[in-house]
């Protein structure tokens, strides 16, 4: 057995023992050493784990954009759409136009209303699309700017014109060639969305409004004006009101328009910026006037005769929700057939009669009149020549512009 012999200890051992007697913080013990090394390992491991994360570049999907098309053997198509964006029968469970499509083609449609918000839906499908995986959806419906982003990122498939004869022939001219998808190579519009000014006659109480400037400046409307959180719609109308062109404005124009709105916010003129929930504010009269989407106004007007809309002389903003086929979708051909089907006047008319948005299909008037005479004459559903002439579109933005503009606009809305 080894004996404890103090004078035989090496100088290092001796020093260690002496240190341990001191019992202070500096005393090196086995435990503190272990703790220290464990801490170090944790820190190193943690840092390693942190640096390993990263988010891959979004455009990295070269692994094959289109998956094998299973349309032939699997007679189905999966269609993701916004809520209340499809006709329903009286029972509220069936979609007549989709059923007619299935009867004619034998293709079953798995219809899901799982899109509530462009930004949220983008967050939902982003991981799969960025990793080059199937989202389980063959058709998705997204608003212009997000459709543009997906095309820019290479996350959606080019459509085959051979499968889209009706769509090609009947697409109405004002939707033909947006600058983010010239000639509609990747997308077709589902519905057009006109951004106009809505007002509540009772709440206005005789105050006359004709332009956006009236909303922003008239002191009688202080705290009773609403704007939309959708940057392109609010900023587009403001640019138009200032005599600028939303199709080709500059960054300076944008800043000027922003400053104009900021002034109105600082004065307390603007009650709040809203999403879809403005419908409650305007029908209760909390908003006397607000920027609004025409499809909603048609429905609000039917429920409440005090509500009406106006189109400023400077024009109104037109955007659309677009049908897209995401990468790796299993049933592309089926999806194209479904898209094409909705460009047949009869199906388009049935849909338009039910959902009241701007119909992007030509030659629908006759069919629509058979179903609903009023709808056929409503310029918010089938824009006449005068209406079409006033329709303007927001130009597409580069990714840097998009970030910068959205950030400035978010500041305006308080966040």
């Amino acid at each position: 057995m080894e004996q404890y012999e103090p004078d035989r200890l090496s100088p290092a051992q001796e020093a260690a023992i002496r240190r341990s007697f001191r019992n202070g913080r500096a005393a090196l013990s086995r435990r503190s050493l272990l703790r220290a090394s464990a801490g170090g390992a944790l820190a190193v491991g943690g840092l390693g784990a942190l640096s390993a994360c990263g988010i891959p570049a979004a455009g990295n999907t070269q692994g094959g954009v289109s998956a094998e098309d299973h349309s032939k053997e699997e007679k189905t198509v999966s269609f993701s759409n916004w809520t209340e964006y499809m006709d329903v029968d009286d029972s509220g469970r069936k979609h007549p136009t989709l059923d007619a499509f299935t009867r004619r083609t034998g293709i079953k449609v798995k219809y899901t209303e799982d899109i509530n918000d462009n930004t949220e839906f983008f967050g939902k499908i982003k991981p799969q699309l960025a990793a080059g995986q199937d989202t389980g959806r063959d058709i998705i419906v997204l608003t212009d700017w997000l459709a543009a982003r997906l095309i820019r990122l290479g996350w959606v498939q080019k459509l085959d014109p051979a499968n889209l004869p009706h769509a090609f022939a009947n697409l109405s001219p004002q939707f033909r060639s947006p600058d983010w998808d010239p000639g509609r190579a990747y997308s077709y519009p589902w519905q057009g969305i006109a951004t106009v000014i809505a007002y509540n006659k009772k709440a206005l109480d005789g105050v006359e409004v004709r332009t956006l400037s009236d909303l922003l400046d008239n002191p009688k409307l202080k705290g009773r004006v609403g704007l939309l959180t959708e940057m392109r719609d609010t900023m587009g109308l403001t640019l138009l009101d200032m005599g600028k062109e939303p199709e080709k404005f500059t960054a300076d124009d944008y800043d000027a328009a922003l400053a104009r709105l900021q002034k109105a916010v600082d004065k307390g003129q603007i009650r709040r910026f809203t999403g879809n929930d403005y419908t409650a504010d305007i029908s209760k009269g909390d908003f006397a006037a607000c920027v609004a989407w025409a499809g909603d106004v048609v429905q609000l007007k039917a429920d409440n005769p005090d509500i009406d809309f106006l189109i400023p002389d400077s024009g109104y903003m037109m955007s659309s929700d677009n049908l897209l086929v995401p990468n790796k979708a299993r049933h592309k051909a089926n999806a194209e057939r479904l898209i094409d089907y909705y460009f047949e006047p009869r199906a388009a008319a049935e849909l338009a009669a039910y959902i009241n948005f701007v119909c992007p299909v030509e030659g629908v008037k006759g069919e629509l009149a058979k179903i609903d005479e009023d709808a056929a004459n409503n310029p918010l559903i089938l824009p006449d020549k005068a209406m079409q002439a006033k329709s303007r579109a927001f130009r597409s933005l580069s990714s840097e512009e998009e970030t910068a503009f959205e950030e400035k606009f978010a500041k305006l809305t308080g966040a």
Partner: protein
Amino acid sequence: MTTVTEAPPLAPAPERKPPRKRGRWTPYWLLLPGLLWLVVFFALPVIYQASTSVQTGSLEEGYKVTWHFATYWDALSEYWPQFVRSVLYAASATVLCLLLGYPLAYLIAFRAGRWRNLIMILVIAPFFTSFLIRTLAWKTILADGGPVVDALNTLHVLDVTAWLGWTAGDRVLATPLAVVCGLTYNFLPFMILPLYTSLERIDPRLHEAANDLYAKPSTTFRRVTFPLSMPGVVSGTLLTFIPASGDYINSDLLGSTDTRMVGNVIQSQFLRILDYPTAAALSFILMAAILVIVTLYIRKSGTEDLV
């Protein structure tokens, strides 16, 4: 008929095995599901967010960890008003919840008798509808020209609150007051339930004893009831304050541009501006701030139990 059967002869006692030692690892196996859950749904997301907060890049080029800690400073210097506002609103809502919730919890615990269950159901019932719907209902309640706002205007209450800067003009909606009201309403049950559990546990004989010792009811409350209910007060305030400070729905629906809270900023950074690092950094700052506030608070309140 009774037969007495003889008990069968006892079998020779089996050789007694030493009691099987419970595996040393058993408690850990039992903990495993919970730990896995925590790792997958708490630890990993936190690490992922921590990593995101020090990355730089863009959607197109991808994000890389560059240890860009300046994001934190930028986020804080840019959005400190929203942080301050969040803490202020959440604290006001918590105090209001306590003032409203304590008497109610007291009533349920000591005075409700056979109505106790009914009142409890009334407290919890709003939870059967969605958070969003409940908040939207407040827009109807507080609508301009509605009965509530009319009454407040007639009584000139809104003149006072407008002078204090809580409301604007003759309306309640789209003002700080509306946001705080919404927060208070939405988180009230989180205050009442822990308060009730800790009040209900107090032995009524303690009240009798206090009475026997000539304590006035107010003294009984101050010296007996309230101190014994402290755990409920602490956990109730935490359960109210923490989610309220991160909330963005109330500010979004009931507020305006000058009532935006940090939750709104995080939401818009994540979803609209797509500036993931800033959003992650903001979340971490919020988390750290809450942690500090809560730690100080628990130290001060001097209670170890949380229910």
